[in-house]
């Protein structure tokens, strides 16, 4: 709400220094958003929360000032002479939808001279950012800002049959509003029509055709109460908002409807020389109920934690125009003023008391009781994973989960239905909710590449959204994503460090697998559990994202990983006897993966074999076509005595025999 302090003074003289007044307003919930000196006046913009439409006017603000300063509220007196003619005799109002328009009033002012408003009025309107138009339009705006009740002035003579019909729009009807744009109306929108056509979008904007202009001599003045939800829906649907719709959609004061009409009529008589017809057409449907509620004084300390004397609480409610219906030692019963739609319960009254008692009174030192909590296993491992990835040279990223409908955007390593689609995305091309971090990481990769950062290693522990059949909400799987510029072994090395650090490395296996996401990829398992996938991203994605170079990517199911990590580490006694190491180098078909060779060695039935370690891989010169040479180290040890060289040699021979029968391996000399 935009005000100037001099204008405010018309309704209340707080008798406070300017700075103190502003501070008190802010402390009462009307925060100062902006301020600007206007010579001898001060422009102030107040933040009004959506529950307080009663403060969307100068009188509304003055009401608060009056309550917080104890100074009286001065409402302008409304007086004007009326002609002998009754308004009912020259105009009619039919409200066909009393649900959407519970109250409609009309007055007629005859013989107005349309021209510029007086300087004082123009100055005030312009000070709060309104454009002066002509005296009639300015008066409706002035009264709107003064009391919060939107008004509309029609050119009476342009209304067919001098009739006002408040009804829903008919399908296909259109109206050109005073912003000179044409709007197509729908049958759930309320319009003000004359005998023939809509002349205003109710509560939102008037029509161009019946707008008051220089040639206007007679005015029909509308002041009404429209149903808030309907106004909001119409305003949103038409993408048309105004000072009027802003107030109607938050709710105006039922009791203020007629006062605003009389106030505007009196100003029209005074300023434009018009003559106000006698009486008013006031069509009323169902009145909002009078709200009565009560407050137990004992609840004040229960909610607030400080003692507010009962007398003080009652004084505050009275000052805010709550009518005291009864009061005893325990409680006070009040009638809520008609402009306060936000108050209906005890807690609402407690808030009123707290607000005007002052939140600064709650500065009471009070210790908080201590409780003990331990981080969960998942929590601790989450931190460990972050630390280890950082120690491996990865930078943590935070990415937005909206992705495009492209192969990367649809990428998914998990069991899931089609991705969820956002109905109203900010960026139309990124309307899918990700099922993998990959598309987000490719965006990061591209951004960095385009800003001269060539090689990146990034990770994130975040969520992917996996729709599941028969479930309302998607599964939100927490995954660890890692993207790195480098080859497969580079990224696999990081995973190995990570798994080793969590003491699950020995049970993790990698099995190469085909997928649309990777040109070369592997499924990662730990025991029975699938942990995720790792691979080099496919050509298609490199092209789609304009990447120079092919990054490696891995995605790990965080919960599955946590499950595999032991709850408690158990110490294993150190070996008491020395180990014997033996190396073996074999020539074998190039197609046999190392993993198979290791499995074969481990499965050779050698009880003393403790470890098999890859040493070297060679293919090419000096080797037959289609063959490779693999060297590995075996470590043997007995737990019950020193292993002899002969035992080790025997074991190696057994293993070699096994490799020969299984893979036709040959010893490399």
């Amino acid at each position, binding site marked *: 709400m935009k005000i100037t302090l001099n204008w405010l003074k018309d309704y209340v003289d707080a008798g406070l220094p300017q700075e103190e007044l502003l501070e008190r307003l802010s402390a009462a919930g009307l925060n100062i958003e902006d301020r600007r000196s206007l010579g001898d006046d001060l422009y102030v913009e107040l933040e009004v929360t959506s529950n307080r439409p009663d403060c969307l006017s100068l009188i509304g603000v003055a009401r608060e000032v009056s309550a917080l300063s104890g100074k009286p509220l001065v409402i302008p007196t409304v007086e004007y002479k009326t002609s002998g003619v009754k308004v009912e005799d020259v105009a009619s109002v039919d409200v066909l939808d009393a649900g959407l328009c519970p109250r409609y009033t009309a007055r007629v002012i005859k013989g107005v001279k349309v021209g510029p408003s007086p300087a004082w009025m123009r100055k005030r309107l312009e000070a709060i950012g309104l454009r002066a138009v002509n005296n009639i339009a300015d008066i409706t705006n002035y009264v709107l800002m003064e009391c919060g009740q939107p008004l509309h002035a029609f050119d009476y003579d342009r209304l067919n049959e001098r009739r006002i019909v408040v009804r829903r729009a008919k399908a296909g009807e259109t109206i050109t509003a005073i912003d000179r744009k044409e709007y197509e109306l729908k049958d759930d929108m309320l319009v003000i029509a004359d005998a023939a056509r809509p002349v205003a979008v109710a509560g939102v904007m008037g029509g161009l055709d019946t707008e008051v202009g220089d040639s206007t001599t007679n005015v029909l003045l509308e002041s009404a109460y429209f149903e808030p939800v309907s106004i909001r829906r119409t305003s949103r649907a038409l993408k048309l908002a105004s000072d009027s719709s802003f107030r109607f959609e938050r709710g105006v004061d039922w009791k203020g409807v007629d006062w605003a009409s009389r106030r505007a009529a009196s100003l029209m008589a005074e300023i434009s020389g018009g003559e106000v017809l006698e009486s008013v057409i006031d069509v009323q449907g169902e009145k909002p109920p009078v709200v009565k509620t009560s407050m137990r004084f004992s609840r004040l300390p229960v909610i607030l934690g400080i003692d507010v004397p009962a007398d003080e609480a009652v004084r505050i409610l009275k000052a805010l125009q709550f009518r005291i219906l009864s009061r005893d030692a325990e409680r006070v019963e009040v009638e809520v003023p008609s402009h306060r739609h936000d108050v209906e319960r005890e*807690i609402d009254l407690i808030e009123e008391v707290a607000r005007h008692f002052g939140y600064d009174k709650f500065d009471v030192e009070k210790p908080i009781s201590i409780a003990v909590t331990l981080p969960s296993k998942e929590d601790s491992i989450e931190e460990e994973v972050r630390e280890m990835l950082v120690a491996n040279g990865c930078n943590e990223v935070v990415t937005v989960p909206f992705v495009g409908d492209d192969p990367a955007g649809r990428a998914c390593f998990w069991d899931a239905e089609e991705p969820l689609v956002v109905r109203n995305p900010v960026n139309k091309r990124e309307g899918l909710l990700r099922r993998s971090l990959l598309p987000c990481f490719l965006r990061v990769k591209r951004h960095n590449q385009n800003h001269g950062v060539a090689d990146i290693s*990034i990770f994130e522990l975040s969520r992917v959204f996996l729709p599941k059949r028969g479930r309302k909400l998607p599964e939100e799987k927490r995954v660890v994503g890692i993207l790195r510029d480098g080859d497969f072994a580079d990224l696999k090395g990081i995973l190995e460090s990570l798994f080793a650090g969590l003491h699950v490395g020995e049970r993790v296996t990698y099995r190469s697998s085909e997928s649309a996401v990777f040109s070369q990829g592997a499924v990662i398992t730990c025991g029975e559990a699938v942990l995720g996938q790792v691979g080099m991203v496919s050509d298609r994605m490199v092209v789609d994202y304009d990447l120079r170079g092919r990054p490696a990517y891995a995605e790990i199911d965080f919960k599955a990983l946590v499950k595999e990590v032991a709850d408690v580490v158990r110490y294993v006694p150190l070996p008491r006897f020395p180990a014997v190491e033996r190396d073996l180098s074999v020539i074998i078909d190039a197609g046999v993966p190392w993993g198979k060779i290791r499995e074969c060695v481990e499965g050779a039935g050698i009880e003393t074999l403790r470890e098999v370690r890859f040493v070297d891989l060679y293919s090419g010169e000096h080797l037959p076509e289609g063959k490779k040479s693999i060297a590995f180290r075996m470590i043997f040890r007995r737990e019950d005595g020193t292993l002899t060289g002969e035992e080790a040699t025997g074991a190696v021979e057994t293993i070699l025999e096994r490799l020969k029968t299984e893979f036709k391996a040959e010893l490399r000399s």
Partner: protein
Amino acid sequence: MKDQLAKILAEAKAEIGAASAAEDLEALRVKYLGRKGVLRNIMAKLSKLSPEERPAAGQLANRVKQDIASLVGERLKSLSIAPEDREVFDATLPGRMRPYGTLHPITHVTREVKRIFHQLGFEWVEGPEVEDGWHNFDALNIPPNHPARSETDNFYITDDLIIRSQTSSVQIRVMEKQKPPIRIIAPGRVYRPDTVDATHHYFFHQVELLMVDRGLTFVDLKNIITLFIRGLFGPEVKVRMRPSYFPFTEPSAETDISCVFCGGSGCRVCKDTGWLEMGGSGMVDPNVFEAVGIDPEVYTGLAFGFGIDRFAMLKYGIDDIRLLTENDVRFLKQF
């Protein structure tokens, strides 16, 4: 003989000290200690001494033998430590640096929040980001047709599936499952349609606090917020609360802290007001309690939701919120 042994030891010391390779040392070992070495030679002469002289001389010879052996051993060790090709030592040459990574500023700040609330005994919980209308709106006292449900303020998937616009939905999930006393803190990503610029984004982070127990009051709320803010920004920071409106709390408050850049005297960051807006808070609205079956006559609750991005920006002096999700590695490496 004594003199002779001393001389041998001195010579050996010099030669071993000068040796610069393991092979040289091996040769010296053979020369002095070998089967045909200098010391063997001397020892052979022991028999020629008188029986009185013999034990002392023998001991001395043995000691010299041990000394030489350990000199060789030490020199060998030192040779293996100092690379022989570094003739001129240059400490300013770069080392073999290991790659290093960094945590995102949001994580740094979230960790601090976590640390503070762990000390106060709060449990850390999370809730879904894709929510239904009940948890994101109805149970939070935001009935159908409430303006806060509009498509301009929320990302919708279907009419009853929303990407959460605040972490308060976690409050409902916790209270549906857990009986008071409740003491939780819930960090999370939230989403609200907005035009992206230096200070606005449609994706940001919040931390939600909820405490439900007998006897909790607005005074406790203010104390906890003050503890938290001071834990984060230091003991000198002032906290101010002013009335505000949120459907799920009443009374509600907006929290301001004295500007951490100018200390309250006014600067560009605080727009010369001396205060910075931190986020919303309040006492849990009785309607929310009723939605989850907690008796508001018996229990009271307090809650707040603060923006983590804002904390990070203030803490590190980041002047553009877009940097937080752009993930430029040159930016990330600074934290």
